[in-house]
C-alpha cells in the first residue's frame, strides 16, 4: 500500500474507473508523485492515459479508490484544488470567435485573478509563448501551432503548481516542440510538477524523472526511463561494413541460424540485428557469432556497436503492442480538427 510522504503532492490508492457499457479504463492504480517531478505517461491508444489525467484534474470520478492532491481529498476540495491544477486537454478548447487577448482575460477572471496579477500574467505569457503578433486576432484565423500555443498559455494563466498535459505538442512544428520541452523543464525548475502524456518518447526519456507505462488500464511500470529501457528494451546490434553487401542470402541464412531470435536487416553497408530473447550476458557470445560469420563470408567490418532501444521498444517487449498511433489515424484526427 502506498503511503503519503510529506513531499508527495499526488496520491492515488486503488483507483478503478469503468466507462459505460463496461469499458474498463483503469484497474487498481496505486501511485504517488512528489513535488517538482516531471512524470511521463506512456501507453498505446485506449490504455487509460487520458482517463488517469482527467481523474487527477477532477474532471472524472473513480468508482473506487481515493485521490489526494496536495494532501487533500480531490472530490471534497475540488474548487480549492482547481486553483492549483491545470489540465490542458488534447483538444484545443478555444472559442474561435474570440481573440487571444479576450480569452486570456476571460480565464483570468474565471480563476479569480486580481486585475494587476492578471495584467502581469498576460504580459509574461504573451512574451513566453511569443503570441504578440496574433494576440489581437480572432482564434479562427490562427494556424494550428498558434492556436496550440494560446491553448497552453491559457492553461498557465493561474500559475498552476500541478500541470497536467495531454499530448500538448501534437500540433507544434519541430521548433515549437523544442521550445515546449525547454519550457516544461524551466517550469519544473520553478518548483512545479508536470505530468505529461506524449508520443515523443525521446523527449519523455530525456525530460522525465519517471515514466508510467499503462497497458489496458493497468500500471505495468513506474520507474525512471533509463531503468525501464535497461530492464526491458530489446538491444540492437549495428554493424557497418567496409563495402556494400552483395551476398545478402549467404550472410542472412547463417546469421539467422546462429541467432534464431534475431530480426535481421541487411541494407547497403549496414547489418542490423534486433534480438527478441536476450540477456545482457549473451552479448559477447552473439557478437562473436556475428563476427565469425562475417569473416567466413568475407565481409569486412568497419564499426560495431550495441544500442539499447528506447521506450517504444521496451513497451513493445512488455505488452506486445506499439505505443505510436497509426499514422493514418493521426492524420484523420488532424483533418477533423481542421474541418471543425
Amino acid at each position: 500500500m502506498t503511503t503519503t510522504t510529506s513531499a508527495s503532492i499526488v496520491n492515488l490508492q486503488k483507483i478503478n474507473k469503468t466507462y459505460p457499457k463496461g469499458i474498463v479504463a483503469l484497474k487498481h492504480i496505486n501511485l504517488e508523485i512528489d513535488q517538482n517531478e516531471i512524470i511521463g505517461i506512456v501507453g498505446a491508444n485506449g490504455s487509460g492515459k487520458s482517463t488517469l489525467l482527467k481523474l487527477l484534474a477532477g474532471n472524472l470520478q473513480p468508482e473506487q479508490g481515493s485521490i489526494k492532491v496536495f494532501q487533500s481529498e480531490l472530490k471534497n476540495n475540488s474548487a480549492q484544488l482547481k486553483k492549483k491544477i491545470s489540465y490542458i486537454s488534447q483538444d484545443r478548447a478555444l472559442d474561435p470567435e474570440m481573440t487571444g487577448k479576450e480569452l486570456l482575460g476571460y480565464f483570468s477572471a474565471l480563476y479569480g485573478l486580481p486585475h494587476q496579477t492578471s495584467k502581469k500574467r498576460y504580459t509574461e505569457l504573451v512574451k513566453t509563448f511569443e503570441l504578440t503578433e496574433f494576440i489581437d486576432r480572432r482564434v479562427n484565423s490562427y494556424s494550428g501551432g498558434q492556436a496550440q500555443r494560446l491553448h497552453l498559455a491559457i492553461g498557465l494563466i493561474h500559475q498552476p503548481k500541478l500541470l497536467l498535459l495531454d499530448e500538448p505538442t501534437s500540433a507544434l512544428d519541430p521548433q515549437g516542440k523544442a521550445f515546449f520541452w525547454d519550457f516544461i523543464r524551466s517550469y519544473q525548475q520553478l518548483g512545479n510538477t508536470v505530468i505529461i502524456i506524449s508520443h515523443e518518447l525521446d523527449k519523455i526519456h530525456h525530460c522525465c524523472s519517471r515514466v508510467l507505462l499503462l497497458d489496458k488500464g493497468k500500471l505495468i511500470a513506474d520507474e525512471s526511463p533509463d531503468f525501464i529501457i535497461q530492464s526491458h528494451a530489446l538491444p540492437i546490434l549495428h554493424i557497418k561494413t567496409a563495402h556494400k553487401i552483395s551476398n545478402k542470402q549467404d550472410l542472412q541464412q547463417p546469421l539467422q541460424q546462429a541467432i534464431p531470435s534475431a530480426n535481421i536487416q541487411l541494407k547497403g553497408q549496414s547489418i542490423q540485428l534486433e534480438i527478441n530473447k536476450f540477456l545482457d550476458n549473451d552479448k559477447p557470445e552473439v557478437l562473436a557469432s556475428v563476427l565469425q560469420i562475417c569473416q567466413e563470408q568475407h565481409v569486412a567490418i568497419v564499426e560495431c556497436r550495441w544500442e539499447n532501444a528506447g521506450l517504444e521498444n521496451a513497451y513493445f517487449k512488455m505488452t506486445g503492442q506499439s505505443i505510436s498511433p497509426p499514422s493514418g489515424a493521426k492524420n484523420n484526427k488532424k483533418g477533423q480538427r481542421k474541418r471543425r
Partner: protein
Amino acid sequence: MNYPHFAISYAVFKRTWLKTLRRPVALTFSLVQPLMWMLFFGFLFQRYALDDLPIGIQYLDFLVPGVCAMTVLFGASQSGIELIRDMQNQFLNRILSTPASKPMVMAGKISADVSRLIIQAALVLLLGLALGAKLNTAIWPLAYMIASLLLFGVAFCSLSCWIALKARSQENMATFVHLINMPMLFTSTALVPSKQMPDWLATIAQYNPLSLVVNISRDAMLFAESPVFKTSLLPLVLIATLIFLLAALTLRSTKLD
C-alpha cells in the same frame, strides 16, 4: 459575495455580448421575426372589433405588448444554443475546469441574454408606436412592462440553457424548443384576448406564464393599471428563481467528457 464572484459574472456577461454582436445576422433575424408578426397580425386583424375593450383601443394597441413578450419568448429560446456550441468545441469543459462558481457563470450568461432581449423588446415597442399604436409610455407602465419581461426572460433563458445542457445537440434542442414555444404562444393572450377563446383554451391561457407577462404589460400600457404583486409579479419571480436554480445546478453537476 466577494468581488471575484461578480468579476466572473461580468466576464461571462461581456463574452456573451461580444459573441452576440459578432453574429449580426442572428441578431437581426431575432428582431425581424417579431416585427413581421406585428406587421402581419396587426394589419390583418386591425379591422376586427375586440370585445370588452374600451372604445378607441385598436388591435395594434392590443397586439404590441403581446409581440414584445413574444420577442422575449422566442429570443430566450435561443439562449442555450451558445452553450451547445461551447460543449461541441470543448470550451465548456475548460470553463467547468476552473474554480469559478457555476451559478455565477450562469448568472452572467442569463443577464447578458436578458439585457439583449429587453433591448429587442424596446425596439419592437418603438416600432409599434411608430406604426400608430396608442400606448401609455409613462415611467411606471414602462417599468412594470420591463420588470415582467425581465422575469420572464430570466425564466425562459434559464429553461433554454437547462434544455441545452440536457439535450447536448442543436437538433435535439430545436425540437424541444418548438414543442414549447408554439403551444406557449397560441395558448396565451399574446395575440387574442381570453374572452374570444373557447373556455378550455381560456383556462389554459389563464395559467400560461406568457399570459401573465402580456397581461401585466397590457394593463399598464393600455389602462395605466398597476399589477397586483401577489397574483402577477410573484408567480413570475418564483418561476424565474426556480428555473434559474435548476439551470445553475445542472451546469454545476454537468459531467466533463
